[in-house]
């Protein structure tokens, strides 16, 4: 195997068969459960110290839900997540507070994730209220200003409110807040999708620098596959609540074996108008299935050009497949290179 599996002592987070189903109800007055959205359905993965695990995939495939489960902002329907060997869903009181200090999240939506009635200084400094031991009271303002400076915001704007900043500026506020407690793990849920490429480059450089400096581990969720490729050491591809392929950055981007990954890579728009319309793009036909009622067998089969009867009957396991050295959940996994991004 090419993927080095570092000794398990290196594992900071281990996710074991995590499941989250949201009840689906009808009726306005009397709610009746009619099913469940299978937002996350049996996800297992490991995160190593100092590494960046990229997560890409279908919109609605459960990436943000997974992130919230790892932060314990949602409770799982079943499954476990071990942080330094302890199942985080068993933690309470002080141990839970400690966990929340060590795992931070930077959210997808820079608009709704910031309280409009708090100043930027209060937002970035709020983690210190919950964890007063980190920075002495008298030092807080200075610390907050330093954090603003680190993420490229003007420290003088400490008394402004979120609505006075642009979308991209607000995203940096979220990152400053995420950094405040010097966590071990930062989960970034589309941290740069609201940023222009130049600021995006700054933020990515910043995240990489902080990682080198503090040995941080990142889970980096994003739709921009070029960005993920740049920052990630390993990449997991999600579809409808499950990981369908996982491997090193090079394995996923250069030797993708799952049809969904291949479709995804083929759809990446190329920043060069002279090749407009020339790239061969795999068009996925068929409707996106509902996560409340996923297809039998392989969940991707309703949109897959390779699907056979076997795919409808047997759920393909996420495992190393012949002819490749990383895990893929496709009965007919096969390396395909014509979809690889060239730029």
């Amino acid at each position: 195997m090419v993927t080095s599996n570092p000794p398990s002592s290196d594992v900071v987070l281990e996710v074991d068969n995590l499941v989250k189903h949201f009840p689906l109800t009808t009726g306005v007055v009397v709610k009746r459960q009619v099913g469940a959205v299978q937002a996350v359905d049996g996800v297992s993965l490991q995160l190593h110290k100092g590494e960046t695990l990229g997560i890409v995939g279908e919109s609605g495939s459960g990436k943000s839900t997974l992130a919230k489960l790892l932060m314990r902002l949602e409770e799982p329907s079943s499954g476990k997540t071990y942080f330094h060997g302890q199942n985080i869903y068993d933690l309470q009181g002080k141990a839970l507070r400690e966990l929340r200090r060590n795992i931070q999240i930077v959210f997808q939506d820079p608009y709704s994730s910031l309280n409009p009635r708090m100043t930027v200084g209060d937002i970035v400094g709020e983690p210190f209220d919950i964890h007063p031991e980190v920075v002495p009271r008298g030092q807080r303002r200075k610390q907050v200003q330093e954090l603003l400076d680190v993420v490229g915001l003007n420290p003088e704007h400490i008394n402004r409110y979120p609505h006075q900043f642009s979308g991209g500026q607000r995203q940096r506020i979220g990152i400053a807040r995420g950094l405040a407690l010097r966590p071990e793990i930062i989960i970034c849920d589309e941290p740069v999708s609201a940023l222009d490429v130049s600021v995006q480059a700054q933020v990515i450089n910043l995240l990489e620098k902080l990682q080198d400096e503090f040995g941080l581990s990142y889970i980096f969720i994003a739709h921009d596959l070029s960005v993920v490729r740049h920052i990630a050491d390993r990449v997991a591809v999600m579809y409808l609540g499950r990981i369908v392929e996982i491997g090193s950055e090079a394995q996923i981007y250069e030797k993708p074996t799952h049809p969904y990954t291949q479709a995804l890579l083929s759809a990446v728009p190329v920043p060069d108008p002279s090749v407009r319309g020339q790239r061969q793009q795999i068009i996925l036909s068929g409707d996106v299935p509902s996560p409340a009622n996923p297809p039998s067998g392989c969940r991707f089969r309703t949109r897959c050009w390779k699907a056979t009867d076997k795919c409808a009957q047997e759920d393909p396991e996420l495992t190393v497949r012949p002819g490749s050295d990383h895990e893929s959940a496709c009965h007919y996994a096969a390396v395909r290179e014509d979809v690889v991004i060239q730029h």
Partner: protein
Amino acid sequence: MATTEAGIAPRPDQAGLTPLLEVEDLRVEFRTRDGVAKAVNGVSYTLHEGETLAVLGESGSGKSVTAQAIMGILDTPPGFVTGGSVRFRGQDLLALPDDERRAYRGRSIAMIFQDALSALNPVFPVGWQIAEMYRVHEGMSKKDAKNRAIELMEQVHIPAARERAGDYPHQFSGGMRQRIMIAMAIALDPDVLIADEPTTALDVTVQAQIMQLLADLQRERNMGLILITHDLGVVADVADKIEVMYSGRIMEQAPVHDIYASPAHPYTKGLLESIPRVDLKGQELSAIKGLPPNLTNIPAGCEFRPRCPYARDICKEQRPALAEVVPGRFSACHFAQEVLDGDIEPAQQ
């Protein structure tokens, strides 16, 4: 004013036709406690039927505020339009009283908002919110409106639309909410669609479908599209022409092919160089150093000067106007020609 006229040159094939939308010398400021923030400082552009104009630019450069001013939904106060005009098929919208202006909103010009969650009302089901558009604007019956809403949700690829029409915004993923916003914006079949980051929360396969949907609408109805986005891949795929904004002004304007092939402004050049590339994996990304100017105190001279690798003395003293470099291409840089020709070295620091 030469600065503004430069920005409204029609495409040769469209010359003589009344443009769908003409923005001229638009100015917006925010009167805040910290002073007056000049968010939009003389923006001009034209949009013709069937045309796609991409607006690029630094976050905070005034892209959304320009769109809000065009739509007439500026946050007033503290925001005020302090100058310029917005003509829709020749009619200056800024000169209209509020109630007349409202009639244009949604039908003539519609907008997909950047912040999908806060633009949706959290206390109503999403299907109801879309249906409301048809009830209010088209007087449809409740039942018809609901069915239209579900159809539209299907068109933007919401799985199990019928079952999920009764769900509330927080029950949808980020990308789904974005698609709901798109559905609401195209509901009334607008002539101009302003799409503010319409696909940032979408995976690339759904993004491709949505862009295709917008392209189809555009073709069928000859809709004009203003696409505000940071995604240089999407822009390369769909735009006819590009405006690059910085600090509330247009820094460069050109047809899409020209800009990618050879930018004529150092800011555009910096943007294109910041795109992560496969062959640069493991290296630091090239980024434009520094911060955009504080809009309450924009320095004299060129707004980009403090961050510009090519800045010379003149850049400190004179603000470069947006001027034609070669036919059809405009740049607001004293050294536009040199930048375009690749004929300039970074200044000694």
